[in-house]
């Protein structure tokens, strides 16, 4: 089967005199490099010019709050189940009286941890979530000095009340398989 | 000019002595190169720039590079130098004495009457002069020595090929 049109048949045939001279080949090679010399450059001067992320970019996770600021996650564990890398662990707890403003559902995640060294950023947790609580954003997981610091807890994952993270551009990934 | 001669001569002798007394063979070769340079300097003083340049190219530039090459490949140093048996020492001493004797005899028999040459005559060491002399007066010796080189080259090829021919 032919995969591309740019294949070349390799042969061991004897070189002709012109090929043995080697100089025409040098000229051809120089022609190619000189053509590239005047081509449009592909470099992006990073700090001044930034490249747009693709809309499907999958970066670090965020645990969303609802419009009242209550955490949406109900600790159902579907994300952990869906996770192929088994990066997600959680501990469920029952909502006490007076905590309605903090947690939307009666059950909530007391502990929610994602090991960013295990995570492969596939986005299956996002798909599995029935409460639209977890999303992958376009920010990055930053470098750390210790492996422990890569296990993100709720402190890092839940979005701050006063600084909501917009994931509307991503929407519900229902169209995906 | 006199000063230049003496500086060159003294440094030639000193570096030649250093060749003999240097501990490491690599240093010996380097001192020898310096000796060649001082001799090339003498040639320049005698207005023989061509000889000087050829001397540097052939001796310092080619032959000594090969020497250095071999020494580096063999990685000779003091630790690996084999202990020579006594009879070898004896041979060395006898050989050295014979060489000394020959040189003393040569100096003894040769006359030191110089025929003055105008050292400031620019045409004296030029390629033209040299070529004319070589190809008129010394043509036979010149050709014989070139044959000698040819023989050496063929010998090297045969040694290197060993049985293939």
């Amino acid at each position, binding site marked *: 089967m032919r995969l591309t049109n740019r294949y070349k048949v390799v042969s061991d045939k004897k070189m002709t005199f012109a090929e043995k001279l080697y*100089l025409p080949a*040098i000229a051809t*090679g*120089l022609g*190619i*490099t*000189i053509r*590239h*010399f005047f*081509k*449009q*450059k*592909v*470099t992006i*001067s990073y700090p001044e010019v930034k490249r747009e992320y693709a809309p499907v970019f999958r970066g670090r996770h965020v645990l969303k709050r609802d419009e009242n600021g209550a955490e949406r996650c109900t600790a159902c564990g579907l994300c952990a189940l869906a996770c192929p890398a088994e990066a997600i662990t959680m501990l469920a707890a029952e909502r006490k009286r007076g905590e309605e403003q903090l947690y939307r559902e009666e059950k909530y995640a007391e502990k929610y941890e994602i090991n960013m060294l295990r995570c492969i950023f596939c986005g299956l947790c996002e798909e599995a979530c029935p409460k639209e609580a977890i999303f992958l954003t376009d920010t990055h997981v930053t470098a750390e000095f210790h492996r422990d610091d890569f296990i993100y807890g709720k402190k890092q994952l839940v979005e701050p009340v006063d600084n909501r993270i917009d994931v509307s551009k991503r929407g519900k990934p229902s169209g995906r398989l | 000019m006199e000063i230049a001669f003496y500086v060159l001569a003294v440094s030639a002798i000193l570096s030649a002595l250093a060749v003999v007394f240097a501990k490491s063979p*690599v240093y010996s070769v*380097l001192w020898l*190169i310096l000796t060649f340079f001082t001799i090339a300097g003498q040639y320049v003083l005698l207005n023989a*720039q*061509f000889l000087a*340049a*050829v001397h*540097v*190219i052939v001796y*310092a*530039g*080619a032959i000594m*590079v*090969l020497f*250095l*090459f071999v020494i*580096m*490949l063999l990685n000779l140093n003091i630790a690996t130098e084999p202990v020579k048996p006594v009879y070898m020492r004896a041979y060395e001493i006898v050989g050295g004495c014979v060489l000394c004797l020959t040189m003393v005899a040569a100096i003894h028999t040769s006359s030191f009457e110089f025929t003055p040459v105008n050292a400031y005559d620019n045409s004296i060491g*030029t*390629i033209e002069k040299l070529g004319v002399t070589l190809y008129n007066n010394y043509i036979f010796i010149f050709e014989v020595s070139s044959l000698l080189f040819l023989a050496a080259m063929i010998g090297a090829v045969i040694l290197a090929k060993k049985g293939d021919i």
Partner: protein
Amino acid sequence: MLPYIVFKLILVLVILGLTLLIATYSTYAERKIAAFMQDRLGPDRAGKFGLLQPIADAVKFFTKEDFIPAGADRVLFTLAPAIAMSTALMASVVIPFGNSLILNGMEFPLQVANLNIGVLYISGVVSIGVYGIMLGGWASNNKYSLLGSIRAASQMISYEIGMGIAMVAIIMMSGSMSLHDIVQQQAGPIWKWNIFVQPLGFIIFCTCAFAECNRTPFDLPECEQELVGGYHTEYSSMKLGLFLFAEYVNMFVSSALMSAMYFGGYNIPWIEHLNLPHNVETALGSAFFFIKIFFFIAFFMFIRWTIPRFRYDQLMHLGWRILMPLAIVNMLLTGIILLLIQ
């Protein structure tokens, strides 16, 4: 006599400065050209278009730790880059950078020393240059360095022969070993340039010049994939800088030699018909000479980023079994034709 000496001193300083400046900016040009050929931008942070990059490089080289490995021969380790650099600089002494300036009725040639053995002087200096690399490689006490230096030595000895014989053909034609005379004989119409008389000789000379400068496709003494850094594996700081810099100075000198010996040097074709004043003609000629030098430096760089490295046996095969016989044939043909013309 005094103005003559003063002029020579100024000329020496100017040529030294120019050589160093051109070599410095060659490093920048090399990086830029390499980048452009690979569809990149290259250094563009230091100054406008990265024009201050060489200065930044120099500052970095000078401030880095100057390290001598424990097993190294300290004297030779320090001496080697100095030899490499000084021999590279010595060669530019005999290159005629221009005709002559007439000031106050006195003629000042734009050449530091018009030796009557100029061409031989160049090959002598080049053959000494290999000691820098050899000693550096040996003194490092590292097998990669040693392999690199041994490669360098055998490569340089092998290609010197072809180069020398190619130069002999030029010497036979001009009847002089002085570079000034060789350039003078190419004055007049453009077909007086030696490239049109000695095209084969030029190809041989050019190839050998690449090999002598240790430039790709013949950069085996320092090929990264096999020998880490080659002869300068153990070098750091400005000692490494001197080695790298010597390569660029060598490149400048070979470019100057090629344009002087084969491309008419400072002669502009048909300029004598314009009846310009002598000094103006000299200035224009020098500018033209430098343009040719820049062209050859750029050519060196284009070749470097185009052609992959030769294998070592291919290198030796090319040097001994192709270039040397070709050079001898070229020399014989030149001799026969010269005899027939006479």
